């Protein structure tokens, strides 16, 4: 589904990603861990097409196409979804309005009719139940006045409604209480399928207790310094990152 080769990315002439290689196949769940400032969010932004970064080397292929060549909205319509580490607020625009506009933009791109109001309400009802979210949140402005945890849950709601193919979750588990963590994990697990892949950026093993990854990668100083199975996360939990950073430096 996704192939990243030798990716180098800089911002304001400062090199942040220094040669990333990553292969994500359909149905796989990859966890990316690593110290603060190592470039995890940068990678997620590059995948989603956020302006302001320069790719100096390397390539990204998504479903056989050059991802870097696509506008951010085209990537989204082609199935790339990013749950933001810091979701933005949009005053005046209701959650439900955004969801409907987004769903219809994606459907239109694929040559489908807009969903009618009744069908849409049905979908929404089912998806809010999935993330155990009160219907009242639908009529509030996007993320405005939401608590940190509510914002994260809202990202998962959007993901559930839009049904993307490649889901990138940037620290969706940070700031969640235990119950909310379970809800988010539930949401993700129910979306897991053979056609859908996940890249989960996280600092904590506890998320991986609920969502078992196929692969764990450690990103340090702009490079993937170690990859392994789910047991790698447990090892990191015990030993921290310093031994890997030392290895990489050596």
């Amino acid at each position, binding site marked *: 589904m996704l192939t990243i080769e030798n990716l180098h990315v800089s911002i304001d002439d400062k090199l942040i990603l220094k040669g990333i290689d990553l292969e994500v196949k359909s149905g796989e769940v990859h966890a990316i861990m690593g110290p603060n400032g190592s470039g995890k969010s940068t990678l997620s932004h590059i995948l989603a097409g956020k302006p302001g970064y320069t790719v100096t080397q390397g390539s990204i292929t998504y479903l056989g196409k050059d991802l870097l060549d696509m506008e951010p909205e085209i990537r989204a319509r082609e199935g790339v979804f990013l749950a933001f580490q810091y979701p933005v607020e*949009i005053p005046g*625009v209701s959650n439900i309005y955004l969801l409907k506009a987004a769903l219809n933009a994606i459907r239109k791109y694929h040559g489908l009719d807009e969903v009618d109001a009744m069908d849409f309400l049905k979908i929404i009802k089912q998806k809010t139940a999935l993330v155990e979210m009160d219907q009242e949140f639908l009529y509030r402005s996007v993320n405005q006045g939401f608590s940190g945890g509510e914002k994260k849950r809202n990202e998962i709601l959007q993901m559930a409604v839009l049904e993307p193919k490649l889901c990138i979750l940037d620290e969706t588990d940070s700031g969640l209480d235990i119950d909310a963590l379970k809800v988010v994990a539930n949401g993700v697990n129910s979306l897991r399928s053979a056609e859908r892949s996940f890249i989960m950026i996280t600092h904590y093993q506890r998320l991986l207790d609920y969502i078992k990854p196929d692969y764990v990668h450690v990103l340090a100083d702009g490079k993937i310094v170690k990859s392994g199975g789910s047991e790698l996360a447990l090892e990191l939990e015990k030993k921290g990152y310093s031994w890997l950073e030392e290895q990489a430096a050596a």
Partner: protein
Amino acid sequence: MSTSAQQIENLIGKNYKQGFVTDLETESFAPGLDEVVVRKLSAIKKEPAFMLEYRLKALRHWMTMKTPEWAFVKFKPIDYQAISYYSAPKKKEDGPKSLDEVDPELLDTYKKLGIPLDEQERLAGVAVDAVFDSVSVATTFKGKLKEAGVIFCPMSEALQEYPELVEQYLGSVVPHTDNFFAALNAAVFSDGSFVYIPEGVRCPMELSTYFRINAANTGQFERTLIIADEGSHVSYLEGCTAPMRDENQLHAAVVELIALENAEIKYSTVQNWYPGDKTGKGGIYNFVTKRADCRGDNSKVSWTQVETGSAITWKYPSCILRGNNSIGEFYSVALTNNYQQADTGTKMIHIGENTSSTIISKGISAGKAQNTYRGLVKVLKSAKNARNYTQCDSLLVGDRCGAHTFPYIEIKQPSAQVEHEATTSKISEDQLFFCQQRGLSPEDAVSMIVNGFCKEVFKELPMEFAVEAQALLGISLEGSVG
């Protein structure tokens, strides 16, 4: 500039869809203004003597006045002698008696604007008076309104048919001495709409006037007068467009509303005059005086305006809350783009006891535009327990535009309660990127955010107009993202 800021810049390139010119034979005056011109104008329209007297009085007063300079707008001085003060489509004989006699070119123009005057296709439930350049060309639904006792006709016709009503009320809210442009209008206004709702009548449909400036080098000076007699109710809509021309054209209208005891007037405007091109060339100067007199107890006037057009907009629809318990409301969306300038707001003058007013103003600036809110809340000594709530929000699109807020508050009555809230925000690159990440194009994202910002005002508009207003904002923000 980052890519995203560039995108925002591109997005707001305007696309004016009403900019065509209609080829019509017109009859117009040579440019220039003096007593001879005013007499000729009055004579052509076969006006009663009081009207000519009034016009001459206004002209003499105007000649002593100077263009006001206090607004936050910049423009080259206007040469009032270079403007033609009358232009009308040449009538076949003595003017159209029914729609069948209206020049098909004209009907076609209104059709292109989405305002069918054809009785078969007309907007359901809306009576339309169409004003082309300076004259009213067609009024629909006259019969049905007459049955209800409602008078809705061009001002020129009202002067023939109901001169006593006009004489009683014209200039009673906006006197000819009020301000420079009001004086000019009083001297040279050529037509406009006249509405009278008799006692206890709820007007059975929305009344609407569409203004269209077509001819070059003409000014448009309409005069609208709406009288809601005791216990009556009316909702009135006003829409405006003009062709694209390189020169600036002056539009100086006066609107007077009078609400007697227990009467209610709702006045909505969607103003989309030609704003000028991307470089700031051309466009309409929209210098308008709109004022309502809540003369009777328990009367109510509500102004709702969506201002997206004009090179310069300079207007303050106001309410004089004279009657006890009277209510004034002002809901405004003003969008400026490229080099457009808007200095708009309202005045709420509390005179009666328990009067209350609400002001909700939403200003959006994009490109290099300047958007100013200027509002006055004045509570006189007599206005016991007066209340006002003002909310004034500005939204900036891009970083080369400006928003300014000048709220003036004068309170002479200690029991008054006045609240004021103001915010300024900006469409951020992060918001835009977030929306794109959810599949929306940047155009749709900006339009969604702007529409969300204006929601409180749009909900005050009559249904059909709300849809039109939303679409208009979309078009105004439409651009060339490639």
